[in-house]
């Protein structure tokens, strides 16, 4: 499995999470998706999807993309404050 395939797998997984929370109001859903990624994804996986989103994020569902951005912001603020 290539690097690209692995990234696509993460995109697929993030979208799956987004689909589960599709019934929620948008902001709540984005928060839940970001929280799920934070709680269950290992930092390498999060870094990879954050990097992917930062470079366009093609294929990420809108809410998943927003959640990744939220994750990115919290990661940035954590690294700034630490």
């Amino acid at each position, binding site marked *: 499995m290539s690097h690209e395939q692995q990234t696509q*797998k993460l995109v697929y*997984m993030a979208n799956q999470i987004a*689909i*589960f929370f599709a*019934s929620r109001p948008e902001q709540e859903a984005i928060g839940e998706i970001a929280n799920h990624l934070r*709680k269950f994804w*290992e930092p390498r996986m999060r870094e990879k999807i954050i990097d992917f989103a930062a470079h366009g994020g093609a294929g990420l569902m809108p809410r998943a993309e927003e959640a990744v951005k939220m994750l990115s912001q919290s990661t940035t603020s954590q690294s700034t404050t630490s």
Partner: protein
Amino acid sequence: MGLIHEIDFGTKAVSAENLVSLTIDGEIVRVPEGTSVMRAAMMMGTQIPKLCATDMLDSFGSCRLCLVEIEGRAGTPASCTTPVAEGMVVHTQNERLGKLRRGVMELYISDHPLDCLTCSANGDCELQDMAGAVGLRDVRYGYDGENHLAQAKDVSNPYFQFDPSKCIVCSRCVRACEEVQGTFALTIAGRGFDAKVSPGMEEKFFDSECVSCGACVQACPTATLMESSVVEIGQPEHSKVTTCAYCGVGCSFKAEMRGDQVVRMVPFKDGKANHGHSCVKGRFAWGYATHQDRITKPMIRAAITDPWREVSWDEAIAHTAAEFKRIQSQYGRNAVGGITSSRCTNEETYLVQKLIRAGFGNNNVDTCARVCHSPTGYGLSAAFGTSAGTQDFDSVEHADVMLLIGANPTDGHPVFASRMKKRLRDGAKLIVIDPRRIDLVRTPHIHASLHLPTRPGTNVAILTALAHVIVTENLVDTDFVRARCDGDSFGQWQDYVGQAQNSPEALENVTGVAPHLVREAARLYATGGNGAIYYGLGITEHSQGTTAVLALANLAMATGNLGRVGVGVNPLRGQNNVQGSCDMGSFPHELPGYRHISLTDVRESFEQAWGVTLESEPGLRIPNMLDAAIDGTFKGLYIQGEDIAQSDPDIKHITAGLSAMECVVVQDLFLNETAQFAHVFLPGSTFLEKNGTFTNAERRIQRVRKVMAPKNGYEDWQITQLLANALGYPMSYRHPSDIMDEIAALTPSFAGVSYDLLEREGSVQWPCNEAAPLGTPVMHMEHFVRGEGRFFVTEYVPTDEKVGPRFPLLLTTGRILSQYNVGAQTRRTENTAWHQEDLLEIHPFDAEQRGVIDGAWVKIASRAGETSLRAKITERVAPGVVYTTFHHPMTMANIVTTDYSDWATNCPEYKVTAVQVSLSNGPTDAQIAYATLGRTTRQIEIAAE
């Protein structure tokens, strides 16, 4: 140390509250109303002679040996069938009774081979005991009359033999098969002198419906039904109570020994999970412990293409530690990880995750629950607040309606299935939701009220349709919901499931189930009394596995079927200690007791106890570890008792990941499939060779007791400790009880657990702490662990694994009674007599379309890969669905399954794979190549003496 002898009270205990006083042989005794005279006598220490009675079975009253006199009553009634009465005066022994009993015994003995000295039951024969008890000194009829002594033995069963010449036709075996096991494989054929025990239609045991649970052997009072191991070895001389190492039922057994040799495993009557019953695996399939394939010396090799080299423990441990240190130094601290074993004890599992978190310094720890019940953990935790089933097994006795979905208990959890069957025979109703017509749909004296044959992959749709009916037909238990559940989430859920798109009619095209069946099932579950949900991997192993678990929780909350005996949401967990391995912090995001690694106060408590700083971020899950390995960032893996190269999906991906690592350490009993890709092999110990505890599917913590020295030299926890010390993280436990003490000190739900408590109580169910010092059989009684129960909207999302012109059939996988998981243990026992190979079940319609005949080799191909196996044509599967097991590595069933997985937990979607089936000439090239690889990578270079 001698044999543990359980008291046989002759008849079953009665749970009546009213007590009755009676006089037996001049002594006054008070017993529950409804108790038999025989049991009452035994309760005061008087054993009335008996042959057809035993307290595992209902009273029968046929042997006429237990006759007593009751003042004021005529005749000599059988004490086993006579209930006590207030003021009753009973005489169990006088001249008249003695004479009657001797007369009965004379008749039995006149037609019995008098070969006691050479009989396998010598010393353990109730007939022999009773002859002594009644003072039999002579048989007036002689021994030359017509008899049954020339009848031939049936030795067809690999584990026990049937010698009809010794049978006294007491029917205990027949009744055990009916009442305890519920298979009804035995009967009494013929009448009078011709009466004889008959498996099926006078077949041999092996050819009959007998499932070899051993209940008949256990019930037999003579040597008629006898374990072959006793015939071969002789009677055992000491025993210990331990816990079975097969499925999640967690049966208690007496390991009966002669020296350090197991003579037999006998189910323990006081075992609270099994109440004296067993299945063919736990009862008989323990021979793998001494199988010739067992590896008992450590081995290392530089490359997986090299032969193995036997080394000392010191060298193996030092080499492993050096390799892990090298890898971490070269690639970073997070480049290594480990997998805990759901077959090992709680203490061993706890120690592996501790080694990884504290010794490796990361959270890259996972366990096989990843590929089975991780959605259960996530789902039940989210809905109720804890990651476990809600009930004890005994709860089933109070269930009025069982909703069974995605589980096949008669094969996967046979001892609990017998409990279910008993309750069903007593009148409970059964709803089966399953693509296959599993045995419980129709089996002797049981007929499911409803079978909803769903299309694989549509669980969430069918469960939401059930919810739709419950909501729209006003079947919600509003009092329960208002009192116990979160109102906002209920409102959202109610609004969602009430929509027309979720009706059974609207979803029929998805589920394939007739709407009226769905409506009837919903009504029955919601209004039929105590509704109990039981489910298995048919729920969890889907891309919507977690969603389905949440949907089950929704149903139970909406109908008020939680928080009392007889109801609940009950996952039937697969492996012996999969519940325990999850409890012990085997997931990368959780410390023991299901507390997230990011929780500072929790982490600090472990840091203080372990003397290290812990990583606060979650680690890698098994599939993520393999992804990272292929990506070049994960290089070392310590695997205790897990065979991911056979059990996990998309084998090509698994083996590519393993092959990309620089140090794979396998700690196991055998050179399993994963060991083909390993650089270090650390020989493990069996459950017979170690102390510890297992936790079963009902959260019951039970002792595992060592009955023989480890053939490899160490118990598994000791090996982990050696490795930790070599890595520079000191561990100095002297006994697993030390480890349990540490678990209890750090884990609130285990706070009250200790080996002393387990010795006193036999077992306890967590939570066991100050609030519940003797454990918690039923959870969420007053309130949910999370406070209010939370509903979740469960929208059905079809899997992306879809059928089409190339792959028009759906493959689903499962297991069978005689085999266990990857078969590493059961394939090395006589259980192979029932299952030499995995078969592909295919419906006659699909078979005919493809020209497939029964037993023919067929190729099964998916987008992930292809393999070949033999076909079995059966209507158990619906048209369009095929089914197989994965017990044999050469089947390579998981080369076909895909890497689609659950959205929340990455639990693989084993249960849905789009495939095509076509005729084949035999194994595929890949199977032949794999067999060759297996031979090459298992070569061992024997060290010079």
